[in-house]
């Protein structure tokens, strides 16, 4: 009864946080506690409805093949020479969106709760919660959109919220710069996506997901294969930006300038996976274009390895986590590219738990150490902050891929998917990335939480509103993966594209990933915990000096972009500047100068003496007379202006 109500009114889920946004902005802004309660309460109720709706979807088999769509006409336009533009707006519930709906609202609820403690004392407390609510509403709207245009609107809205929240500490110049960088970078990518959507609308005459899925299945009736490839690539540009894939990943690490709950919610668990989700939603498009799938896979695999190598050398706790997020997003893209929606969504699901957990743990540490972010200056925190430490360790085990924690199952599934698809190079890259992931994560954990205490620090455990989300999320980080074990894969039954494949359990890949993870952790242990003075680690950094510096400076990608910006944009601007001052201004000034100079030249004739004028006049008449005498009257009349 209640479940059916929730399924039929799934639009309530994004609406509730949107209402919270309006209420906080217009009514409760002066009352800090009340604003927080409104935000957390509305998200909790939304989470309740989302849970019911997801329960309804997952207990009713008919919705796997046929999504539940409630849509209405938004607007329609008749255009000459084109099919009519009809845009619907609605909600689409199927296993993928139901899972996302539950995951987003669940994690958002606990991160909202965490923010109550974390943002204590901030002058923009109420505003912060209004932004968070707006973000929650936009993200949930994105997730349940039945139409790509509607999804695009939500996509831009989450981008806006991301901008507002990264730059939340407006007094920090770095935060403002990071916000601008994030917004501009994502806008570049969104332009590609918008072009892709326009092309879809023009070619297929609809943007409704279900209709598009049917039409693209036999796209030959509408368009050529080349056009479809172009559309797929354009659509993929959007996710490259939003999900921080190479080469547009540069904004994500800088986005850590925002408050930590924002990093956890937006830049780890939810918004950045929107790109992965979009590719998953439009899988019917990519499925038809093998080259686009290849592009997705290679981009993902490369990003995973690339970001992991950078993360090894970084010093700031949130920056390490940010590169780890980029790397894990690469994994998800890789899984999509090799054709496994199941593995990708599974990793998205488990990653949301353990990465949100780790960010919140990092926030707890920063809160205790008064925003001292360098892991080399921490150490021995486990004595004073037991809950934070042990939940963080659980997150570390999960992301490293140690069974039975969540990350192991999803990462293993991606590796197996790559292997089964015959992508051996990508498999090797992903496996090596798994080793690097374990290494850099445990480097951070050993440096920050274990070893000797830094006497300059006076840490303390955080209040319950901050530790409760840590505990709840750590339960997720342990158990979220049990839904999709290779032996009993409920996940694969529900969330899939096409027919699920039931290969034999690949014990070899499983063993390999455990060995790699353990090796990574062991290496980190040897270098950063056992060797208390970290002599060997320093020696290695010296040994690989140029490589170390290149990684520490993130492959100089930012510098490259700056240089490129300098060379291309400023160069073009300089060219146009020269054109402007010499050609445009030259014409205008030239006309003026011509008038002035000719005036200068002619004014000697204006002596003011009548007799001079008479003389000139007479000479003119004489000239006409002479002309007439030698050439006849017609030529003279021509000179005199055509008078006959």
């Amino acid at each position, binding site marked *: 009864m209640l479940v059916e109500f929730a399924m039929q009114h799934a639009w309530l889920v994004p609406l509730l946080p949107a209402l919270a946004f309006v209420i906080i902005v217009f009514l409760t802004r002066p009352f800090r506690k009340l604003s927080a309660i409104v935000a957390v309460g509305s998200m909790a109720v939304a989470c309740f409805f989302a849970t019911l709706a997801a329960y309804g979807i997952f207990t009713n088999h008919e919705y796997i093949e046929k999504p539940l769509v409630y849509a209405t006409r938004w607007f329609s336009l008749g255009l000459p020479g084109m099919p009519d533009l009809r845009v619907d707006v609605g909600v689409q519930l199927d296993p993928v969106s139901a899972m996302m709906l539950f995951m987003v609202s669940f994690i958002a609820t606990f991160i909202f709760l965490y923010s109550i403690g974390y943002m204590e004392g901030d002058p923009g407390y109420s505003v912060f919660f209004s932004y968070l609510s707006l973000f929650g509403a936009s993200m949930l709207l994105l997730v349940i959109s039945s139409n790509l245009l509607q999804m695009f609107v939500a996509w831009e809205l989450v981008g806006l919220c991301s901008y507002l929240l990264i730059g939340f500490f407006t007094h920090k110049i770095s935060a403002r710069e990071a916000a601008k960088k994030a917004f501009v970078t994502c806008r570049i990518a969104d332009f590609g996506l918008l072009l892709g959507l326009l092309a879809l609308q023009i070619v297929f005459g609809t943007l409704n997901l279900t209709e598009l899925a049917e039409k693209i299945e036999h796209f030959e009736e509408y368009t050529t294969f080349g056009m479809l490839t172009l559309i797929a690539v354009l659509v993929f540009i959007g996710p490259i930006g939003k999900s921080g894939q190479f080469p547009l990943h540069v904004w994500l690490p800088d986005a850590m300038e925002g408050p930590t709950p924002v990093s956890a919610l937006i830049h780890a668990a939810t918004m950045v996976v929107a790109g992965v989700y979009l590719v998953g939603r439009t899988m019917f498009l990519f499925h038809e274009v093998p080259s686009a799938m290849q592009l997705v896979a290679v981009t993902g695999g490369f990003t995973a390895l690339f970001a992991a190598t950078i993360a090894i050398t970084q010093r700031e706790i949130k920056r390490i986590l940010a590169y780890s997020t980029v790397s894990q997003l690469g994994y998800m893209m890789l899984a999509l590219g090799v054709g496994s929606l199941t593995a990708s969504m599974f990793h998205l699901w488990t990653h949301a738990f353990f990465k949100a957990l780790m960010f919140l743990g990092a926030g707890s540490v920063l809160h205790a150490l008064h925003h001292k972010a360098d892991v080399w200056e921490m150490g021995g925190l486990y004595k004073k902050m037991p809950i934070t430490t042990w939940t963080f360790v659980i997150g570390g085990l999960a992301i490293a891929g140690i069974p039975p924690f969540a990350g192991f199952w999803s990462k293993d599934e991606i590796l197996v998917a790559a292997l089964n698809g015959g992508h051996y190079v990508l498999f090797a890259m992903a496996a090596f990335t798994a080793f690097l992931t374990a290494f850099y994560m445990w480097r951070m954990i050993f440096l920050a939480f274990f070893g000797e205490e830094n006497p300059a620090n006076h840490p303390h455990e955080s209040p319950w509103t901050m530790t409760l989300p840590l505990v709840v999320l750590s339960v997720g980080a342990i158990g979220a993966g049990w839904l999709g074990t290779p032996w009993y894969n409920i996940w694969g039954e529900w969330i899939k594209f096409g027919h699920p494949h039931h290969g034999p359990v690949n014990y070899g890949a499983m063993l390999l990933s455990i060995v790699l993870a353990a090796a990574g952790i062991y290496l980190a242990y040897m270098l950063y915990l056992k060797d208390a003075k970290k002599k060997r680690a320093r020696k290695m950094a010296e040994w690989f000096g140029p490589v170390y510096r290149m990684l520490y400076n993130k492959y100089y990608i930012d510098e490259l972009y700056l240089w490129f910006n300098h060379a291309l944009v400023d160069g073009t601007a300089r060219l146009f500047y020269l054109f402007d001052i010499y050609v445009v201004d030259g014409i205008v000034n030239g006309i003026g100068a011509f008038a002035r100079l000719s005036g200068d030249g002619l004014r000697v004739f204006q002596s003011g003496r*009548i*007799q001079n004028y008479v003389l000139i006049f007479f000479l003119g008449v004489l000239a006409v007379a002479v002309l007439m005498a030698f050439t006849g009257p017609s030529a003279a009349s021509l000179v005199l202006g055509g008078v006959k």
Partner: protein
Amino acid sequence: MPAISLTHYVVLSALLFSIGLFGVLTKRNAVAVLICIELMLNAVNINLVAFSKYVTPTDFIGQIFSIFVITVAAAEVGVGLAIIIAIYRNRLSVNLDDFDWLKW
């Protein structure tokens, strides 16, 4: 001694006109310039009457025109002298070289 032909009249007229023009261009005194203009106008009158007599002897078009010219000349002299007197009252001079205020 040959009879007086059109050529004689035209030459006379041209001479008279040239003398007048020379005076207009060279004289400093404004009144003298006005007198020279009268010479030029009368050169025109001679031309008009002569051509009328030799080209269209039955019509009096040239003669009528010359009467108009004489009338206009009289009016012109009246206005011109008035201007000269007004300038003289202001400047105590009728020397045209002093009258260059019309330049930029």
